[in-house]
């Protein structure tokens, strides 16, 4: 079955989620991946959106982080101060998803500005929940389309901290969470190399050449000793995702 690269990324991301995970879900691809996981292999996965909705099971994907659908299908909805204090900072969340305009090889992410902070070339939306999601979720998965403008040697601004510029920096700061551990792109999966804190390619999506990955990466990318070939999306996965997207599109066009 044919699929596009967004579908591939979403399916790959959904597969790494476990039934026992408690996910802090961002809008866009993470929301699609988390709900796809819930509709396929992880029916009891707990989804939390920063709007305060806990254990929500939306029938269509929300456009915003606080669509009514999220609250109506949630076990309960708490205030935003409670969400960030008791639930996120309290260490209750196992998986956070992040994306951004720029990421470097240590998983530091920029969603704040392109250029100088005080005289930005492009003013991006800013951090939102990301700085503390990066700190307090037990692990972080990143979903981003790969391009040399996005996968850069050095981000213009560290909005959310990954591994700094080497291993063990998180621990030195008093953080006992793992930080970004996987990046899912449209070309491959990267994972943190423990010894260096650097992201290296561990799985290549079907039909992608190593050179393509390097061309779309702003640093000298390294490959794991054993690199897997990512399993292509299966029929059921694609069908579930497309049904979800179709229902969503109809709902949003109102």
């Amino acid at each position: 079955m044919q699929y596009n690269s967004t579908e591939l990324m979403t399916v790959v991301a959904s597969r790494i989620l476990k039934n026992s995970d408690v996910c802090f879900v961002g809008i866009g691809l993470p929301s699609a991946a988390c709900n796809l996981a819930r509709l396929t292999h992880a029916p009891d996965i707990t989804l939390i959106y920063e709007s305060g909705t806990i254990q929500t099971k939306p029938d269509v994907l929300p456009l915003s982080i606080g669509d009514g659908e999220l609250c109506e299908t949630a076990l309960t909805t708490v205030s935003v101060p409670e969400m960030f204090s008791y639930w996120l900072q309290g260490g209750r969340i196992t998986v956070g998803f992040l994306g951004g305009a720029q990421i470097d090889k240590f998983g530091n992410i920029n969603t704040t500005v392109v250029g100088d902070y005080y005289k930005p070339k492009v003013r991006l939306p800013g951090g939102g929940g990301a700085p503390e999601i990066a700190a307090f979720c037990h692990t972080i998965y990143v979903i981003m389309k790969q391009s040399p403008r996005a996968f850069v040697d050095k981000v213009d601004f560290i909005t959310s901290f990954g591994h700094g510029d080497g291993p063990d920096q998180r621990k030195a700061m008093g953080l006992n969470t793992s930080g970004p551990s996987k990046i899912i792109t449209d070309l491959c999966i990267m994972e943190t190399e423990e010894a260096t804190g650097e992201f290296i390619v561990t799985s290549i999506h079907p039909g992608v050449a190593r050179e393509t990955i390097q061309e779309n990466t702003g640093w000298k990318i390294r490959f794991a000793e054993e690199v897997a070939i990512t399993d292509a999306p299966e029929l059921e996965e694609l069908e579930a995702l497309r049904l979800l997207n179709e229902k969503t599109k109809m709902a949003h066009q109102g």
Partner: protein
Amino acid sequence: MQAKIQTLQEAIATHLFDGATVAMEGFTHLIPFAAGHEIIRQGFKNLELVRMTPDMIYDQLIGAGCVRKLRFSWGGNPGVGSLYRLREAIEKGYPQPLEVDEHSHAAMAAAYAAGASGMPCAIFKGYYGADLEKVNPSIKTLACPFTGERLVAVPAIRPDVTIIHAQKASKKGDVSLEGIVGVQKEAVLAAKAAIVTVEEIVDELQPSSPNAVILPSWTVSAVVHVPGGAKPSYAHGYYSRDNKAYMDWEAISKDREKFNQWLQELKSTDYAV
């Protein structure tokens, strides 16, 4: 001191002033758009706006030239893209330069709670390795007096005026809200004055639970009956989010001329339900 039931025009005219610090809250849900539009119509200037997610509502106020400064944590059109009026103000100083006091969500939420609690600052754990701390002097660190652990402090939010939209108020001015309640309770309790627009005014509130989210009349300055006052945002139990309007905003916001047309139209009409 009980809340006064006023018209939207009266409530905004009574409590706003040029240069005021104003928080209009509602986390995606219950955003007080009608009140924002009335501020534009009455032409207040140099406001210091506070809001976690500026959203379309602050894009409009910024584009209309009402705003000098913004304290915020995420400035985009959720699920759609940029807020171009906000970006033009920061990137190009148009229609006037916009000073920013930027934080994370966790910091903003804690700062509202600190304001409601009479604290001078909020103290939490955050900004590990994040550059925001380097560019915003209102983020400071301190050490836990027991463990030495690094903690972060930001000033409490204490708006001159907070404006929210809620589902119901009683005739006495007690307010109830339900669904995604965001930071509204904190924003109201942190403010010197609070305006609440509501879908309905009823004889008596009949809360669904003893622990329902209620703001007693004596915590609110003005209650205003504005059905549809959160559109194109939504009111749980009343109407859904108009996601299409958010998607359509992209084209208006992107283009100064289209925005100015939108603005002229707004100014020439009373609030739209």
